[in-house]
């Protein structure tokens, strides 16, 4: 009988290692260029392609994170899954929890928003003036991730990314030690989640 270690005996990575920000930003930059090359100059299609990639990531993130966090129960309530997104998913993907989780004001109570004041993916991207105000690369990807997680967890929804200028006067770029410059983010990225009617009905049933 063979005594070599089989493929199934190797433990899954624990997820404690971090990837360098440079590597991630170059990879994401290449992803955007790849998507743009296949998008025939249409901004809408570029965002859709980035969202699709994010969707694939989101589906898998749900499985991996649930596996890694021992003792986590399956989320069946809306606030539970949103909290999971806001905290675990953001922390695992972007190294910090999201900045805000808010409930939108609509008559059906079906809108929620997750906001990030400094989306890591957008930190080094300067959108050219022609495309200004209409393409949000990191935002589209993040929206795709959120949609993937929600779909895989059984909460179908429509997810879109929106960018708004940060309130207050824009902070100036700062020069750190060793003459490294940091330009602070001026945009707050908000992921708007519009849950499906079926989800709301189920939530109402569970709440009763």
């Amino acid at each position, binding site marked *: 009988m063979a005594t070599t270690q089989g493929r199934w005996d190797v433990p899954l990575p624990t997820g404690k290692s971090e990837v360098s920000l440079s590597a991630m930003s170059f990879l994401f*930059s290449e992803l955007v260029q790849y998507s743009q090359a296949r998008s025939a100059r249409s901004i809408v299609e570029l965002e859709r392609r980035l969202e699709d990639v994010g969707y694939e990531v989101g589906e898998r993130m749900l499985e991996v994170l649930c596996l890694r966090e021992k003792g986590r129960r399956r989320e069946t309530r809306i606030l539970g899954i949103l909290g999971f997104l806001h905290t675990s998913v953001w922390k695992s993907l972007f190294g910090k929890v999201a900045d805000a989780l808010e409930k939108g004001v609509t008559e059906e109570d079906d809108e929620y928003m997750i906001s990030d004041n400094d989306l890591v993916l957008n930190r*080094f991207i*300067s*959108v*050219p003036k022609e495309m200004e105000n209409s393409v949000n690369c990191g935002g589209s990807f993040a929206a795709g991730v959120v949609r993937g997680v929600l779909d895989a967890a059984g909460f179908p929804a429509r997810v879109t990314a929106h960018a708004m200028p940060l309130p207050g006067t824009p902070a100036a770029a700062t020069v750190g030690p060793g*003459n*490294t*410059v940091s330009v602070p983010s001026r945009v707050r990225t908000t992921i708007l989640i519009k849950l499906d009617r079926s989800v709301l009905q189920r939530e109402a049933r569970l709440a009763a």
Partner: protein
Amino acid sequence: MSASLVSVLSLYVINKSGGLIYNRDFVQRAAGRIDVSDAMRLGSIWFSLHAIAAQLSPTPNAKTLKSLHADTFHLHCLHVPSGTTFFIITNVPAPNQAQQHAQRAADVLQAVYAAYAKYVLRNPFYETEMPIRCELFDAALSALLSR
């Protein structure tokens, strides 16, 4: 710290093939603004001088044309391994501060290079060797050089 030691008047960035991809004046020039096509010509000439200096050098593989001293300004240059060249026009230092000035100018150039690597090269909308039009790069340079 030594903000008054080196005062950067202008910055020029030249790509691998000698074309000007970025130029910016940080201080209003008494001689008036340089026309864009003139600036491109000046950039190519400097690029050629740099190449000539490399060939004139007695030791092989030298890419060390570092500065040009004139009566009214100093020019300091950084040529990076990828082939891009950054040069700045600065003020003339006092004679006793010449060495610190040169060292400080080299530091400034390194910082500009770092900002380039950070905000230009990681921008998916920037095509390499093309003119630089990145808002974040401009903002970074303002913080670094307009003080």
